[in-house]
């Protein structure tokens, strides 16, 4: 068998495994608590994208680092919905003043509420294992 044929067999095998893997990932459901975004939350997500909020802020630590992570801002007892809405149009330091309508501010706050309901970040109650693994604390776990 020529080397080219052998290579094609290896690549084909990898692609078959990759296809099964992708099918599983694309049909992934939340591990503990499925959260489906409402139309209002999706509207907030759209505004999040159109205004590049991800440039400065993170969700689950993913995004830019100029501003704070916002994963659990909604449920934070010192922050919450009104805090989020206030910041949007007042700006601070390098954060520009946006000109969102009340409805738009509400949408963004709802989007962050849904994100908040999916889990924790930072995950302070994660469990460390000796083999380097980390068991995350999920949202509906006691």
């Amino acid at each position: 068998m020529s080397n080219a044929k052998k290579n094609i067999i290896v690549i084909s095998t990898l692609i078959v495994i990759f296809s099964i893997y992708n099918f599983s990932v694309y049909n992934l459901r939340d591990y503990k608590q499925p959260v489906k975004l409402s139309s209002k939350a999706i509207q907030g997500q759209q505004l999040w994208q159109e205004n590049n909020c991800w440039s400065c802020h993170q969700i689950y630590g993913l995004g830019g680092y100029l501003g704070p992570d916002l994963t659990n801002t909604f449920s934070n007892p010192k922050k919450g919905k009104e805090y989020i809405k206030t910041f949007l149009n007042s700006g601070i330091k390098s954060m520009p003043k946006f000109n969102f309508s009340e409805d738009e501010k509400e949408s963004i706050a709802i989007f962050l509420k849904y994100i908040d309901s999916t889990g924790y970040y930072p995950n302070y109650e994660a469990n460390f294992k000796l083999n380097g693994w980390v068991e995350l604390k999920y949202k509906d776990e006691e």
Partner: protein
Amino acid sequence: MKNKTALLFLILALTALLIGVFFGLLAALQYIIPDLLKDYIPFNKVRPFHVTSTISWIVLCATGSIYFFITQIEHLKLFSSKLIHTHFIIFIVTGIGIYVSFLTGKMEGREYLAYSPILTIPILLGWILFGVNYFKTIIQNVKNWPVYYWMWGTGIIFMIYHLSEAHFWLIPNFREYFIRDISVQWKSYGSFVGSWNMLVYGIAIYIMSKIKKDESSARGKTVFFFYFLGLTNLMFGWAHHTYIIPTQPWIRYVAYGVSMTEWILLIYIIREWKKSLTKEDKKSYCMAYKFLITADFWVFLNLILALLFSIPAINFFTHGTHITVAHSMGTTIGINTTILFASVFFIVSKINPSFKINQFAVKYGRNLFRISLFLFWITLLIAGVKKSYWMYFSENIFFSEMQDSLYYVYLAIFVFGMGLAISIISLGTVLIRVLTKTLKNQENLVLYSATLLIIINYQY
């Protein structure tokens, strides 16, 4: 030299690099003087310019290099000259379209692909044309492909797939389930980077085999083993980006296992190649060789960093900090840009053998590049460690207070970033000048001018 479109790709790539460096500096400046530019061009507007330009540099330079190697060094007859011209025109028009959309504030996309999703269609079309031209050319002319042909082919195909996958969020069923959506988004990004790495690392292996004048290092069993290992990482190793997301644990288990094999690919090949290289060969492509050695150093540093934070218990503390940025700068600048500089210097040595590599801008540019990049990288790590400490080991300190305490670290990042920018501008402008000179009085300069005219008409 009949077809110079490859050089046009390289000139475009270097131009994108200079633009990217400029916006990178503007972005870094906002960390130390937050109010300075926020009314004119705030950070959320600057970052897409920087990211898009630097990604464009990598993919355009890889594309131009591959076209050049195939047509000018391997002397293969390209399947279609029309396709390469069309490919170039599509990319330059789309690139301008993206900048115009950024300037007018129409950014509807996501991180790394901030432009309006509609512009992905011509980008995908360009990659498909590249793929058709590449495979038709290679299949018709080459038997027993060396590994770099496999790597380039794989890179093109997976680039098309993962660029499409990065836009699955447009499908409502994906978008509605946030955890799956963010997982697939970062899956696509991880593999997208893996795809361009296939192109860039293929270029590194190609240049090595040419400097060494020995194709066996690109055909052996070991090199193919590492190619398949790299491909496995491209497919399944992405999830270490998302260890912290509350997704199914099996995804993270797979990523943990696969990630541990990461980065071994290139360092092994380069080290093996260096062992057998004679001094005489090194001299003949001196600057390309020097940049490959610099890439070797960065592979080593990033190998250590990547392996460490692929361990979930370490990733837990490094995720969401500038340690991740240090890794991404180490790979995109330290490895990708360095290999691509090696590629362009290698090409320059072919098209202009009298080019003086000892001229001031090149010699000192390269030294400044190496020193400032290393210091830049170290300060990013320091910023990351400090933020991680704030996140997990300090109490009742506000985010803004933590940021203020990092002022001198951010200042150092800006200063070293400035050094890096000066070095890249020195090297980039020299290379643009040489490539442009080569194009002068050639038939493709007409094409270039015609392209620009089309673009101007298109815009107005």
